[in-house]
C-alpha cells in the first residue's frame, strides 16, 4: 500500500501524517512567524526529500491540482514519531486543546483597576493539538506555538510551573487579533477593595476550562472567568462562568474541579 499523507500547517506549526497499512508516521516542526494566521490542509501521496534528506512536501490541495511546498524542516529540527497500530484508518482527527498547565498572561503595558471598578478583558492563551483516530487512541499531542515556561509564586520555593503568554489584554473584541493558534478567554476583573489594583501578571487556570469554537467571531473561546478581589484586599474569588450561549463544547477541561474557589490574591495576580 503506498504511503498516503495529510499535511497540515497551523500558524508556525507544520504537521505531516503519513500512513501505511499498520503505521502512522507523524512528523512536526515549527518554522516562521508564530503569529501567522495561515491554516493549510493538503493531502498527497509523496513527499520529496532533498540531497540532505530534508523532507519538503509537494502536496496536492484538497481542491485539485494546485501544488505547494509546505515548509522544509531544518535538519535536526523535525521531530518524528512512529505509531504502530492494528490497522490505520482513513480518517484522522485533530483535536484542539488548551494548555496542560496554567498560563500566566502579562499585559504588554501595566494595567490599573481603580477601587470599585469592573473590567472585561480578552486574553489569548496558546492552543495544543492532539492527533488521534476517531474513537481510538491518541497518538500525539503538541503545542501549536512552543510556549515559554515560567514560575508563578512568591518565591522559587513556593509556586507553580506555568506557561508565559504576552497579551495585549484588550477590553474590546474588535481589537483582538484573529489568531488560529490561540484560544480567547474573556476575563472579568472586579475590584471590591478600597484601593487600586495594579495588574502585571494574571494566572489563568486553563486546564480547568472548556474549549469551544465560536463561529460568529471565527475563534476558539474558553469558559469565561470572573476574578473578584474582595474588600479585605488580600483574597480573591475565582469563578468559572459558562461559555457564551449557543456554543457547544469542543474539548472538555483537562482537570475537572469545582467551578469556584478562593485564593490568596498573590496566587492569582501580581
Amino acid at each position: 500500500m503506498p504511503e498516503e499523507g495529510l499535511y497540515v500547517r497551523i500558524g508556525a506549526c507544520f504537521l505531516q501524517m503519513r500512513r501505511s497499512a499498520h503505521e502512522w508516521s507523524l512528523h512536526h516542526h515549527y518554522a516562521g512567524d508564530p503569529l501567522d494566521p495561515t491554516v493549510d490542509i493538503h493531502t498527497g501521496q509523496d513527499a520529496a526529500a532533498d540531497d540532505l534528506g530534508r523532507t519538503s512536501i509537494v502536496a496536492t490541495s484538497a481542491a485539485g491540482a494546485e501544488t505547494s511546498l509546505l515548509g522544509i524542516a531544518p535538519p535536526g529540527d523535525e521531530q518524528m514519531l512512529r505509531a504502530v497500530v492494528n490497522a490505520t484508518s482513513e480518517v484522522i482527527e485533530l483535536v484542539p486543546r488548551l494548555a496542560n498547565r496554567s498560563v500566566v498572561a502579562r499585559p504588554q503595558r501595566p494595567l490599573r483597576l481603580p477601587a470599585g471598578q469592573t473590567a472585561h478583558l480578552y486574553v489569548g492563551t496558546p492552543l495544543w493539538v492532539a492527533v488521534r483516530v476517531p474513537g481510538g487512541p491518541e497518538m500525539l499531542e503538541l503545542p501549536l506555538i512552543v510556549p515559554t515556561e515560567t514560575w508563578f509564586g512568591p518565591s522559587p520555593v513556593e509556586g507553580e510551573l506555568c506557561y508565559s503568554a504576552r497579551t495585549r489584554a484588550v477590553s474590546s473584541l474588535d481589537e483582538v487579533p484573529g489568531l488560529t493558534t490561540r484560544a480567547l478567554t474573556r476575563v472579568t476583573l472586579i475590584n471590591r477593595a478600597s484601593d487600586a489594583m495594579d495588574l502585571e501578571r494574571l494566572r489563568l487556570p486553563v486546564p480547568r476550562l472548556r474549549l469551544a469554537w465560536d463561529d460568529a467571531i471565527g475563534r476558539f473561546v474558553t469558559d469565561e472567568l470572573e476574578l473578584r478581589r474582595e474588600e479585605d484586599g488580600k483574597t480573591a474569588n475565582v469563578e468559572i462562568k459558562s461559555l457564551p450561549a449557543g456554543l457547544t463544547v469542543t474539548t472538555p477541561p483537562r482537570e475537572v474541579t469545582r467551578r469556584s474557589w478562593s485564593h490568596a490574591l498573590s496566587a492569582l495576580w501580581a
Partner: protein
Amino acid sequence: MREIVDQLKEWVLGIGWSSMLRAAIFVLVGLFFARLAAGVMGRMFGGRVDKQQTMLLRRLAFYPILLLSITAALREVGFDMSVFLGAAGLFTVALGFASQTSASNLISGLFLIGERSFVVGDFIEVGGVTGEVLSIDLLSAKVRTFDNLYVRIPNETLVKSNVTNLSRFPIRRLDLVLRVGYRSDLSTIRALLLDVIANEPRVLDEPKPLFFAQEFEPTGVRLQFSVWCRREIFFDVRATLQAEIRKRFNEEGVESPAARWTMDGTPPV
C-alpha cells in the same frame, strides 16, 4: 572441646527427619506470610506515604514475622531459646563495644528518616558523590551515581556532612560564568545573552535572569549570567545554552579575554 563437639553431633543426629521437615515448613510458611504482610503494607500505604516510608513499613511487617517463624523452627528442632536469651545479656556488653560504629549508623539512620531531608528517588550530592538515592537502610544509604555506580554511604557520614538535595524544589538556577575581553561592551553582551534565552522556551520567564560582572581580572571581565529552568532539564538546558552562547559570541565577534602587555621603548634617562 571434644566433648562439646560430640554433644553437638549428638544433638544434630538426634533431630528426627519429621522435626526437620516441620522446622522447614515453619520457615517457609513464615517467609510466605512475611512477604504477604509486606505486600499488604505496601499496597495499603503506597499511595499515601513516600517511597522511603513504604519501604520501612514493608520491612517492619516482614522481619518480625520472619524472626518468629525462625524461632518456632529452632524450638521444633530442640534448640532451647531460653539458653540463648540468657547468654544474650553477656553478649550485649561485648557487642556494645564491638559495634559502636554500627550503632552510630543505626541511630543516624533513624534521624535521617525522621528528618526527611531527602527521600528515596531524590538526587543528592554528598562528599563528592552525586546521584539518585536508591534506599535509606539501617546502616547506610545507597546511591546510584550518574555514571551508574552503586555507592554505599554510611548514615553517620550523611548526618555529619553537608548534603545537597538537588530534587527538593521544582526549579533551579543555572549559573553560567563567562569571560570576555576588556574591549567588549557589557550592555551589548547583555542584550545578546537575553536574545539567546528569548529563543529557548525552556528557560523560565520568571524569576528574571541575572547578569553582572563578577570580577575584573587581569585578562578580562568575568561575568555571571544566571537563568532559571525546571530541575529535570537542568543539564540539557545548560549544554544548549553554552553551545548557543559560544556560537553567538563567535558570530558577533565578542572579544575573548587575553593578556595585554605594553612595551615601553623609551631609553632610560
